[in-house]
Each structure stands twice: as structure tokens, then as C-alpha cells.
């Protein structure tokens, strides 16, 4: 039966495989790898480039990744932990299902992610004889976190969930204490001990996982409503964002990261990097939504089209909603005026440019957007993304390039005037541009509708 489960799983993976998603993940993975390589080379050069005794650091690195690795998987790793109704109604022993979960953990992308990102350290800083064993140590630590997360997902209710973080804490203490023995033990003996410890930890989490009983029940229960009441066409814009976890996370998390980065850039001085972070901070909420104009509506466009609602009105609402979205992050970065040596005009001008022009540049994505699944996870979710536009951030690069190049190449006053004028032009032209987009959309409406249905 385990073989059958694995075959089903492989078939499903094969059929769900999408080159777009693969390249998207590979693209981000490559970025992380590049950063890892750069950092590794810098660290190696600073330490004189000697590989002698460097393997001792592996144990400490392995312990250091336990917490971030667990948190990373808590956000990213979403595996099936309970049999669906089809499988549940077949004679599949629970033991086989649990083994299946364990095996799929060993090939799970997120269990390999951190060890692979740390691979440059193994390759560049360690002697060839310890490269592979060191990588194995990191992988084993990551597997412990992976199985713990599977158990965490399977557990229903906090009474079943809380033992897992507690066990992770105990695991962290034990692993930290053991890692010290690398200073007094032969490295190979230490390595074997560490791998045995990891195996023990995996066994404990797996045992707990096997004890957890859970049914795959739908959660059609009453909800805690976000914003009750309003049903206008404009309110649809913010209600969809507040009630869709995917959109909510996208619109909140990314801007917060860039707001944080804007502040942390200040000690490095005001330069292109700061400008980039500042614009991202203000632009990010509307950018996240604007890369999928009509991606939300694609879920119910048949219903909209058969009602007396015109495309131009929906697009205009969307544009103004994006303008409003840029206000909050602008307010959150305003304290930089008092912290850093920055012209106060930079903030309203950045908002003006972003809200007026950059948002307008997002609107044509309505002509190519696919329907996005509103209730899926937000993290690394490329469903509904267009390879050309969203994946590599083309809708972001053009306004960003205009903004940064202006501030970099022109004098500050000239740049601010140019950007402000561009923003005003955006506001002035928005009706004309939206009319044009609406017209084009209606001309190609059948193709657009078909795209939403596929």
C-alpha cells in the first residue's frame, strides 16, 4: 500500500508540475544561493582562507539553524498530513500513511532548502573529506524540523500542538549542549553522535505524529467577519483583501519588510539603495495587488459581466484603492525625516509618483491577468502569475528604474520636480488610460473570460 501511495503522489506531482512555477522557485533559489556564495567567500577571505579545523563550525551552524529553519517551514512548508476522503475510504493502514508522510518529508523541497543554501559553505570552506558528512549533518537537522512541522500540521487544537514547540525547545537545548562536545571529541565521533541524536529526534516526532488522530473535516463554520456590511463596488476592493489570506499576507508582509529595510538603510547613507527601499515600502501594497488586476475578479467575472457594471468603473475603483493603499506606508516611513538626513519633500513626492504614475502602469495587467486562487497560501504561490509580468517583477522594474535613476543622476531638487510632475501627469491621465484599457479589455473579453475559467 505504501508503494501505491508513493505512486499516486508521484503521479500527482508529475501532473501538477508547471515549468513556470519551477523556474520561479529556481529563480529565487538561485538568488539565495548567490547571496550565500558571496557571504561565504567574504567570510573565508576574512578568516585567511584556511580550511584547517573549519569543520568544527558545522556543529554550531547546525544548531544555529534549528530555530530559523523551524520558523521558515512553519510559513512555507504545507504538506498533506491527513488522508483525503478518497484515500480514507480505501483500505489503507494508518501505519502506511504515516510512513508515507515520513518518506515524503525526505524529499520535501523545504527540508532541503536551508542545507542547500548552506552548501557553498561546505564546498568552499571545508576539506573535501568532510564536505559531504557536514552537509548530511545540516540536512539531518533540517529533517528534524520538517517532521516536527508535519506533526504540528497534523495536530488539531492547541492541546495537541503545543508539545511540538516545547519538544523543539528541548531539542535545541540538547543539540546545543552536544555541539560543545565537538571541542573535546574527535570530529568523526562527534558527527556520528550528532546524526544519531537527529535520528532520535526524528523518531520522537514521528512517534508523536503516529499517535495523532485527525479527520479531514471541512471547516464550514461561522467566520469572524472582517468588516461587516458594505456591498459597494469600491468596498469589494478592500473586503477581498481583508478576507483572502493570500492577499492579506501579500499586502501587509512585503511592505513591512521594506519599511523595516528603509530604516535599516539609514546608517549606510542616503543613496540608490535607500531610494529603492523607500519606494518599495510605499509602492509594495499596491504593487502586490496591481500585478494581478482582475485576478481577484476572475473568480466571479461571469457574475459581474452579466450585471450592469462597467469595466471602466471597476478599473477606476481599483486605481483609487491602490492610491489609498500607498498612504499608510508613506505615513509609516515619515519618521525618517527626523531620523535621517533626508529632504522632507522626498516622501510626498514618492507617494505622488507611486500613486499617480506607478499604479497607473499596473493597470494594463488587467489585459493579461489570470484568475488567482484567493484562499491559497501566499508564500511562493505562483498560481495566477504571468511568466512575463509578475514572475520577474517587470511591472515593478520600470517605475522603480525611473524613480531611482532620477534621484541618482539628477540633482535632488530636479529629481523631485521631475517625479512630482510625472505623478501629477499620471493622475491627470488616469481616466484616459483606464478608458483605453477598458476598451481593449472589452474587445478581447471572451479570451479574458476563457483565461479565468482555465
Amino acid at each position, binding site marked *: 500500500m505504501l508503494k501505491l501511495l508513493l505512486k499516486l503522489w508521484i503521479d500527482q506531482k508529475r501532473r501538477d508540475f508547471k515549468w513556470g512555477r519551477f523556474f520561479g522557485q529556481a529563480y529565487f533559489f538561485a538568488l539565495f544561493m548567490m547571496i550565500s556564495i558571496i557571504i561565504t567567500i567574504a567570510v573565508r577571505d576574512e578568516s585567511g582562507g584556511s580550511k584547517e579545523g573549519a569543520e568544527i563550525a558545522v556543529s554550531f551552524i547546525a544548531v544555529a539553524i534549528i530555530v530559523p529553519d523551524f520558523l521558515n517551514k512553519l510559513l512555507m512548508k504545507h504538506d498533506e498530513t491527513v488522508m483525503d476522503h478518497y484515500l480514507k475510504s480505501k483500505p489503507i493502514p494508518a501505519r502506511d500513511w504515516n510512513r508515507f508522510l515520513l518518506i515524503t518529508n525526505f524529499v520535501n523541497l523545504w527540508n532541503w532548502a536551508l542545507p542547500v543554501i548552506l552548501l557553498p559553505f561546505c564546498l568552499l570552506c571545508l576539506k573535501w573529506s568532510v564536505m559531504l558528512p557536514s552537509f548530511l549533518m545540516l540536512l539531518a537537522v533540517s529533517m528534524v524540523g520538517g517532521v516536527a512541522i508535519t506533526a504540528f500540521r497534523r495536530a488539531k487544537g492547541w492541546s495537541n500542538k503545543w508539545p511540538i514547540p516545547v519538544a523543539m525547545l528541548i531539542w535545541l537545548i540538547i543539540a546545543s549542549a552536544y555541539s560543545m562536545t565537538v571541542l573535546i571529541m574527535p570530529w568523526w565521533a562527534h558527527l556520528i553522535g550528532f546524526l544519531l541524536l537527529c535520528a532520535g529526534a526524528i523518531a520522537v516526532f514521528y512517534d508523536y505524529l503516529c499517535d495523532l488522530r485527525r479527520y479531514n473535516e471541512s471547516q464550514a463554520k461561522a467566520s469572524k467577519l472582517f468588516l461587516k456590511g458594505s456591498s*459597494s463596488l469600491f468596498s469589494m476592493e478592500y473586503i477581498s483583501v481583508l478576507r483572502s489570506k493570500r492577499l492579506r499576507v501579500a499586502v501587509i508582509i512585503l511592505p513591512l519588510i521594506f519599511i523595516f529595510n528603509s530604516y535599516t538603510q539609514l546608517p549606510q547613507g542616503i543613496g540608490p539603495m535607500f531610494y529603492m527601499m523607500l519606494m518599495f515600502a510605499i509602492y509594495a501594497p499596491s504593487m502586490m495587488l496591481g500585478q494581478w488586476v482582475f485576478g481577484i475578479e476572475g473568480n466571479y467575472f461571469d457574475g459581474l459581466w452579466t450585471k450592469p457594471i462597467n469595466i471602466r468603473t471597476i478599473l477606476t475603483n481599483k486605481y483609487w484603492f491602490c492610491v489609498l493603499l500607498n498612504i499608510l506606508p508613506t505615513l509609516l516611513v515619515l519618521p525618517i525625516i527626523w531620523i535621517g538626513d533626508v529632504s522632507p519633500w522626498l516622501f510626498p513626492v514618492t507617494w505622488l509618483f507611486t500613486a499617480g504614475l506607478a499604479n497607473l502602469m499596473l493597470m494594463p495587467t488587467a489585459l493579461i491577468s489570470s484568475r488567482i486562487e484567493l484562499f491559497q497560501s501566499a508564500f511562493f504561490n505562483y498560481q495566477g502569475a504571468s511568466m512575463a509580468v509578475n514572475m520577474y517583477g517587470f511591472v515593478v522594474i520600470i517605475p522603480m528604474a525611473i524613480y531611482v535613476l532620477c534621484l541618482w543622476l539628477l540633482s535632488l531638487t530636479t529629481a523631485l520636480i521631475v517625479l512630482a510632475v510625472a505623478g501629477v501627469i499620471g493622475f491627470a491621465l488616469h481616466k484616459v488610460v483606464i478608458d483605453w484599457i477598458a476598451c481593449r479589455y472589452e474587445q478581447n473579453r471572451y479570451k479574458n473570460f476563457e483565461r479565468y*475559467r482555465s
Partner: protein
Amino acid sequence: MEFKIQNLVKQYGKNTVLDIPELTIGSGELVGLVGNNGAGKTTLMRLMLDLIEATEGYVESDGQRVEEDDTWKQHTGSFIDGHFLIDFYTPEEYFGFIARAYQLSKDTLDARLEEYRSLMHDEILGTRKYLRQFSEGNRQKIGIIGAMLINPKVLILDEPFNYLDPTSQITVAKLIRQMNEQLGTTVIISSHNLSFVSEISTRILLLEKGVIIKDLPNHDGSATRELEDYFQTAE
């Protein structure tokens, strides 16, 4: 409100899924579309609602081609499938949204919803659930009520009896007939449920592989026998 179809053809690649040389649906008729899977019922409805492009020909609603003039939207209520529902809305918000789109006052909306209380069985309003959290049966009811709420001059419903419990099927059939008789609404429904279709329809169109093979007047179930004969012998 009259529907006129002229030389309507829909092809996907080389496959013709609908071919209707001529058809007129008169004002106030209650037309049932029947046929096996793939007969073209839903395709015809989608073409009537301008949701897919006709390969040839056109559909006219009240003398205006649906793809050229939007006026039909003001007086047409429709529900084809889940793509008509806004999943992140509660039923109250969804009905409120429809009321706004058709400029119905709050009082009118409340009064109209009251008329559908028997269909809702206290399972829809006040539940604090989003549409996506409802069962298929209740989603179907919400979609049907959303289409009927505006007291349309034309009502288009695809498989309205699907997913419904027997009591709700009877209620929906009654509501459709009531709307047709009292408001003079032109109704076009498709269904696999022959007994309901022949019970309420004044005319039945039997489709097979995209072609209307029978156009049967139906008074007090007079077409039932002919339909049963067809479906018993059809492969």
C-alpha cells in the same frame, strides 16, 4: 422580452458544439432546455449572456444584439455556476451588492428577500458565513435568489435543481413558475430533471449534439411522453 437567435454557431476548433439556424423565444415564455451531457444547453445560455463568443450568428434580446448593446443586463437575471458568486462575501453582502448594481433600495431588498425565506430555510441569512463556506446546495440557492431578486424580465438558470434537496427543488420550481406567471418574466432553464421541466415549462427545446431536434409546446405536461420516449431510446 423576446429572444431571437439567428444562424448561431459555436465551434471549438473543428468541433461544432452548437448550431441553431433560427430560434425565437417569445416574451413571457417559460422555456426548458433538455438534452444529454454535451447537448449544448449551457453553451446556448452562455451565448445568450455574452459570456462566450459566437463563431457565427448572433443572439438578440429585445431587438438588440447582446454582444453589441449592454441594455439587456438591466433586466436579465442569471445564474449559471459558481463563477457568478463572490466567495468572500456573506449572503447579505452578496444580495446587497446585487441590489446596489440594480439600484434597489434597502427596503425593496428586504421585502424581496422575505419572498425567498421559504427557500432559505434559515440556513443562509444571519449565518455569518462566507459564500465559499456554504454547501453546494445552499450556494445554488444563493445564486438562484441572486438572479431572481431583481424581478428580471428575463431569467436564465442553468440546472437550477442541481444539489437541492427535494423540498427546495419543489420551492424553486414554484418560484420560477410564479415569476413567469405574475411578472411575465421570460424564463429559460436547463435541467436533467424531466419531471420538473415538463411540469413548469410552456415550451421545451430538446437539444442533441448542439442542434435543436425537437421544439415541443408543453401544456400541462403534454411533452412528457415524447421526452421520455426520446431519452429511453437515445444512446
